């Protein structure tokens, strides 16, 4: 068959079109600058903190030394409570409790939220029946439900997980739902023209299109879920990071309080960055940065 390129020359014919950029200093800097700048920034921040608390006239009850906080964190994360202890002073024990609850809650929220959102986006009737409840519960500050669930379930892990699920499930539902609804009409048209039946439309177009939406839903769900974790533990319970914050503040162990807060920040950022990475992995077309 006669190729178009037999008639004119094209960009594709040029072997130099894709060039090896190699590792220039500039390229190395471009890739590492984020980490380098952030690290220097944080180091300066903690040094200033340390200096201010050492030489400034600051009550260590309100603001502990940065080094004291890190020490608490280190000790707390490397020791476990002895067998049979009533209260654990180990941060790791509480962290594991909270983390397990968060993951269980998120898993349940995904199991309900993803199919729920997809169904709502895909079926007009289900959508119109469910949407008032979804919006009502999504707009209700979830913290208001905590006393009710303590009443229903007592100070139990089930209560804590329930609060987490309720916190995380709505952003997941709403994002999946929006993903289905906003699926580009021209993509659906193309699939139909080339023979897609209803099932194929869902599997080949709607689901892949919605996947990044679902991931941002989970990302928001993590943020909300973490609030749920802390709230549920602050209100009721005898373990978890929320409880530890409460307890350490009550016992004037501010260094411990700050250590737990720092741990929460690190945990939240890691999870959110993980979902960002996941999103970039599964949907590279969504963040094209040419413009």
């Amino acid at each position, binding site marked *: 068959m006669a*190729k178009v390129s037999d008639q004119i020359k094209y960009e594709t014919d040029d072997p130099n079109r894709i060039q090896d950029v190699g590792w220039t200093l500039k390229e190395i800097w471009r890739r590492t600058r984020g980490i380098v700048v952030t690290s220097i920034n944080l180091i300066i921040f903690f040094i200033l903190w340390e200096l201010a608390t050492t030489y400034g006239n600051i009550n260590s009850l309100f603001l502990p030394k940065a080094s004291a906080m890190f020490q608490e964190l280190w000790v707390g994360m490397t020791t476990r409570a002895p067998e049979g202890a009533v209260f654990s002073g180990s941060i790791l024990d509480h962290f594991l409790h909270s983390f397990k609850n968060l993951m269980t809650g998120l898993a349940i929220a995904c199991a309900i939220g993803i199919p729920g959102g997809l169904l709502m986006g895909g079926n007009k009737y289900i959508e119109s029946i469910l949407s008032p409840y979804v919006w009502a519960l999504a707009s209700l500050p979830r913290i208001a439900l905590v006393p009710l669930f303590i009443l229903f379930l007592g100070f139990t892990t089930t209560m804590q997980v329930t609060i987490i699920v309720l916190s995380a499930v709505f952003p997941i539902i709403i994002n999946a739902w929006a993903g289905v609804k906003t699926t580009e009409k*021209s993509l659906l*048209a193309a699939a139909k023209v080339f023979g897609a039946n209803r099932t194929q439309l869902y599997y080949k177009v709607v689901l892949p299109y919605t996947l990044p939406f679902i991931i941002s839903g989970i990302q928001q769900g993590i943020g909300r879920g973490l609030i749920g974790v802390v709230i549920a533990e602050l209100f009721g319970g005898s373990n978890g990071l929320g409880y530890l914050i409460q307890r350490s503040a009550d016992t004037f162990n501010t260094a411990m309080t700050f250590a737990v807060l720092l741990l929460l920040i690190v945990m939240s950022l890691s999870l959110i960055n993980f979902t960002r990475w996941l999103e970039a992995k599964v949907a*590279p*077309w969504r963040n094209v940065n040419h413009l």
Partner: protein
Amino acid sequence: MSKSNENIIVAEDLSISYDLHRERKKLIALQNISLEIKKGEFVVLVGPSGCGKTSFINAISGLIPKSGGSVKVRDVEVTAPGPDRAMVFQDYALLPWRTVEANIRLPYELQNLGLSEEEKQARVKNALELVDLVGFEKSFPYELSGGMKQRVGIARALATNPDILLADEPFAAIDAMTREAMQAEMERIVMETGQTCVFITHSIDEAILLGDRVVVISYRPGQIKEIVDVDFPRPRMSNSEVKISKKYAELRDHIWNLVKDEAMQTTRGE
């Protein structure tokens, strides 16, 4: 041209309207279109932007419902898309999560065309060569330029080897040189395979060079204003005589005036 006397697409008093829910009104995009297209014929639609060209081929493809009249393909009323009709979309409509090759293969996954794997591979390769995207099989659409995306859309339609090719401004985003080469290829394919082609363009030159007939559609409501027969012998693209002939200039002038009248109305907002 392998044009026969057998009608393959017949539109009778076809009307298409869109509901404008916000205003509780409906917009009549096309009104009383009657057009018979013969098997193997190359019909070009021209007309001002928004006159309903896309709506017309969408009705032939079965993507949108008609509000009146009928469209038949081989005497069967069109109600849904079918494997005998392929389409090149004005806005490319490539799946962004699929590579160029996977996009071209999409039709094979969706419908059973009764092709062996070797046949599919050969066709995909052929189509890629044809639109000159060899070497970009593994690229994703977001890594391509507008014109390259459009060429993928063309390859996808051609790889199904349809009886009827519906092409919505397929060369609009392609540079003048490439476009000329692609026009020549299009003419050759249609001549060789005996495909029927309904082709939309804003370029009057393209319309005259490719079309057996040029259908000029008027603006609001879209109606057929005039059908201009073009009877230059084929192949025309490789024949340098065509473009410099007196008849070509006359045809060009004639269609230009028809379209201009309509375009003037568009800008006056009638």
